[in-house]
């Protein structure tokens, strides 16, 4: 009698494990499929959606974009535009929103100066204790940066937009696809952080 009871318990346990395992397998597959169907995680849109749903207040930030026609030696290499993002105590959430806004370009009359392609994505963003923010971009973000001026514009606009708006960010370091590289697109050294 006891043997039979033990057997039933064993069968019930096995069934439970199998059902749980199968459920895990299916849900993981669905998750991976959903991830695959998205080109890459649009972290920035997620950030603003989350902050909006929390009822966060909006805040004006000053973003810097490439000033068409200017050379690296020009003092007016960048121009500023005001944008609205959601306020957060977490500087990482703020920084990600700022980069997302930069990727969209200056808009209106400066449309011709669109620096980043539509596929531009931020892979990840880390803030180190010394105030260095590590901006990890996808390959697609930098592959169309043709020439020294375009590369410089990308570095300067991201660095200045982050350091000017967020007190906790003092320096900006760049990675591409999670890797440290000598340059973003073949010219300007990104071995050391910018400030």
């Amino acid at each position, binding site marked *: 009698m006891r043997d039979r009871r033990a057997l039933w318990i064993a069968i019930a346990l*096995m069934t439970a494990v199998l059902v749980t395992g199968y459920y895990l397998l299916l849900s993981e597959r669905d998750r991976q499929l959903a991830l695959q169907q998205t080109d890459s995680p649009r972290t920035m849109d997620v950030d603003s959606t989350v902050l909006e749903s929390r009822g966060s207040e909006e805040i004006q930030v000053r973003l810097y974009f490439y000033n068409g*026609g200017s050379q690296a*030696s020009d003092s007016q290499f960048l121009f500023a535009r005001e944008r609205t993002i959601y306020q957060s105590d977490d500087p990482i959430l703020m920084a990600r929103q700022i980069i997302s806004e930069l990727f969209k370009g200056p808009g209106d009359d400066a449309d011709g100066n669109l620096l980043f392609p539509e596929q531009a994505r931020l892979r990840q963003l880390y803030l180190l204790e010394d105030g260095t923010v590590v901006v990890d971009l996808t390959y697609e973000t930098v592959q169309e940066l*043709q*020439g*020294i*001026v375009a590369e410089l514009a990308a570095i300067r606009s991201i660095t200045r937009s982050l350091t000017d708006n967020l007190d906790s960010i003092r*320096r900006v370091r760049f990675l591409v696809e999670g890797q440290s590289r000598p340059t973003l697109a073949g*010219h300007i050294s990104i071995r050391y952080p*910018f400030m």
Partner: protein
Amino acid sequence: MSALALVLLTVTLQVATVNLKAQGLTIQVGDRKSQIGTRVHHGEVYYDLGDLAKTLELSATELSSDQIRVAGPRGELHLSAGRRLVRLSDQYVALSADIWRRGTRDWYVPRAFIEKALPLLLDQKLEFLSDNLIRVEVLDRNPVRINIANYPDHVTVVFQSERPITPEVTEYRQYIEVQFSEFLVEPRMSSTAPDPNLVRSVEFNPQHAYGSFRIVKGSGYGIYREYFLENPLRLVIDIYGDSLPDLVESSPDSETTHAQSAAPREYTSEADPFDSRIRGVIVLDPGHGGEDSGTRSQGFTEKVLALRLAREIEAQLGRSGHAVRTTRSRDVGLPLEQRSAIANYFQSRAFISLHFGGAPSPDTRGPVVYIYSSTLGETSGAGPAPRPGSAGILTDLTTWHDGQNSHSSRSQRLARLLQDELNQVFGTDNSVSELPLELLAPVQAPAVVVEAGFLTSPADRELLASAQFREQVAVAISRAVERFLQ
């Protein structure tokens, strides 16, 4: 309990497999992205042949239960299940893993198949951007007309390309190969047969990624020389017998842009730029090359223009008696540190990297000369943070990335001379810019990067379209270098 452990292990393994699969492979054709099914088999990642064929528009026909044929615009591949040799006409391509037929219908191929065998079928270029992303670049066609003329002492073969491509010429024991790049070559062969004593045949070789030509040597072959003519752009190859005429003195045509005559085979060989007897030369560095085209805009390609400009400057400085070396003399990619290393190897008197600019705005124009600086040179903006420097630690050694530090004032002088000369040619008043350029940092010589106009600027493109203007640019650069060396 052991049954329970087994079940748990199975579930874990399955989830792990799903994760491996999920790394997947995406093929991007134009704006369209397609996912290729992946599976792990015997520890190797395999890709669904059906998905590949559909995405790349190949036809896959099963010939028997263990054989399948994949046909593309350039040929057919025969695959056998469980084998790692893939047949293309009478050649075999060896893969690192077997072809896998899963169940009764699905065929799977290892990564090596995509990298080694697929490009042989396609008239498109596969660019491996990362482990999981391949971009398919649809190649435009480039009709290339071949003309053959027989002379008493030589045979002339002329390659006239419709696109402004500088082909690469390489000599092999049996033949001379002329390789085109960027576009898919459409051959228009000559109806004239060459003198069989010097040239057995001129053949088109479709197996090369873009298409190449082979000039098969005859029994009386002795030497060849190559040069370019412009308007339209033509590559001319003259093939001589054993007795070589006087090639050194004469230039074959007043239009010749690169008089190859002084050293007919020099830039077909990458072997001897490192001649240890030569010291203190001027090193020219044509930017980009190979897979890295640099800026591309409206049919202008930076790597091609940079190489042509380097050849013109090399010829001009050479005529003034200067020893000149180039970091590359054909369409080949070189890492930045290798270019800097070549400058240092020759203990250069001057290092000039030749580029053409690109900017996000068509209004950005004119020539710009760059020199190295450890800062970005803007007073109110982003600049590199202080480096974890070596000052005070190494007193008698210079670290690789500090090579340029002791040459900055002479680099500045060279840059100003170049900027002034180029501004005059372009009619601009641009200034020298200082940036932390990775290429220049290690160079232990006066070193500059010259961007001779912006290919993204319609005004600059219009100027650079003219061969005469490009020659003026070469003259301006040569003149500035000579003034610097005086």
